[in-house]
């Protein structure tokens, strides 16, 4: 039954991804002094619609995410931000409109870098050792030894080299989420979607993870899309923040604060206040 469901949903992916010539070229990601040459995927959504059982969740949304940018999507729960992310990843088929993903300079049919997602829960395979969980991110690539080597390198990147042979059950919540990050990064993604990946972590672990994600993003230059309801997390990490309300983009803000950003920076605090005011003011019932 499970596999039946897979078979049904699988074809949803390649459909909306066809290349169109009329999409404007991606502007270079601004204000990233130390960023590596971008190998990110640019995302364009045109008049995107999605409804579940006749109930519209996304209503005519237009969006352009430049390659290599770090965009955060914030909004109240139920505003459609997670659905937006799942549509971009191809986990759901849109009811209307289209989504275009464009790889970096993909000239003569180079295989595009993969899109990866980090979920709110780590979703590690409990029956696979940490290193084998990371090789899941390399499904169908290279020899066994090669995959293992790359997985160990990715684990080193998130600072978990010494846990490679352990079972996931023996790790702490933060460590598990770092393994999930290594799994997402090991395939060198062009687009990394983060669906509230730090929501279940304690405050200090969260800050550590935010720094880790920022550092890796700067080094690898993938396009990052972070969905969160934590506005301070959004302003700390993103160079652009989209506030989603009732299935549309209500606010599109640039975060012009240089990196590395200091926690408690007044500019960030002002921006956070503005977004929170907007979110709180947007609810007429309050």
């Amino acid at each position, binding site marked *: *039954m499970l596999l039946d469901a897979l078979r049904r949903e699988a074809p949803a992916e390649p459909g909306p991804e066809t290349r169109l010539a009329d999409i404007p070229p991606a502007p270079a990601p601004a204000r990233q002094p130390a960023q590596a040459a971008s190998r990110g995927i640019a995302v364009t959504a045109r008049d995107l619609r999605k409804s579940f059982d006749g109930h519209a969740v996304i209503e005519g949304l237009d969006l352009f995410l430049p390659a290599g940018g770090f965009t955060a999507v914030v909004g109240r729960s139920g505003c459609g931000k997670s659905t937006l992310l799942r549509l971009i990843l191809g986990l759901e088929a849109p009811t209307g409109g289209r989504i275009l993903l464009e790889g970096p300079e993909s000239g003569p049919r180079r295989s595009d870098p993969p899109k990866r997602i980090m979920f709110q829960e780590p*979703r590690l395979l409990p029956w696979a050792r940490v290193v084998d969980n990371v090789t899941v991110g390399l*499904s*169908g690539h290279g020899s066994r030894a090669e995959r293992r080597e790359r997985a160990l390198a990715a684990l080193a990147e998130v600072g978990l080299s010494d846990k490679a042979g352990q*079972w996931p059950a023996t790790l702490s919540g933060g460590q598990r989420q770092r393994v999930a990050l290594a799994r997402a990064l090991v395939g060198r993604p062009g687009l990394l979607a983060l669906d509230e990946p730090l929501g279940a972590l304690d405050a200090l672990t969260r800050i550590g993870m935010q720094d880790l994600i920022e550092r890796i993003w700067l080094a690898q230059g993938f396009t990052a899309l972070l969905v969160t309801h934590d506005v301070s997390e959004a302003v700390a990490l993103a160079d652009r923040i989209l506030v989603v309300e009732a299935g549309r983009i209500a606010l599109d803000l640039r975060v012009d604060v240089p990196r590395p950003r200091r926690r408690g920076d007044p500019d960030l605090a002002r921006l956070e206040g503005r977004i929170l005011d907007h979110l709180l003011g947007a609810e007429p019932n309050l």
Partner: protein
Amino acid sequence: MMRPTPLGRLRDTALPWLLPVVILLGWQAAVSAGLVSNRFMPAPLDVVRAGWEAGRTGELWTNLWVSTLRALSGFAVGGGIGFALGLANGLSRLSERLTDTSVQMVRNVPHLSLIPLVILWFGIGEEAKLFLVALGVFFPIYANTLHGIRSVDPALVEMGRVYGMSRTELFTRVVLPGALPSIFVGLRYALGIMWLTLIVAETISASSGLGYMAMQAREFMLVDVVVLAILIYAALGKLADALTRQLERACLAWNPAYRSA
């Protein structure tokens, strides 16, 4: 936690055996003192002697071998079919719609009630025993395999899909390992049913095997052999259970609930 001392470890190993040993000693004492007639209940030493005798003539080994072979072949056939059908119905809705209702109906028939029918069909040959054991083993394996596959975390399946696993990979890396704990539960139930079915079948209609040996002994009032047969059943059941435990520990080492202390 305190490190177990050698003495503590010995105590932990010995403790489960304390009760059986005390019962055996009490039993021997009761029979030796004449409190119990050994026409109804032989003393443990008589049973040991009967075992020695049966082992010396080779009768015991022949019967044990015949019974084990029957049990295992019935288990392989019934368990194999149950496992395959459980997988099919767990993975394909069509297959489930087609067969599950029928299987559930048949499941509610006590399989031992088919003995008269089976004797009519197969006589008292090997096929009758094989059929009954296979039928008895089929249901627990089927039901637990199906349940195991259904209860695999859909979040992990989605993860596997996003990470580009092929259908085969998804099955071998996510679905099957996820279903394994439940499949093992089915395996242990099935092993119990396997012995039970075989003994009943051999007791009622057979010309060899442990059940037959016990029935023959009853005809000649050899109570010690009857008790010997019963004790062998207990030992075989315990052996099967211990083997499954070892297998579980090896296969489910990732699960804290199964990790050996």
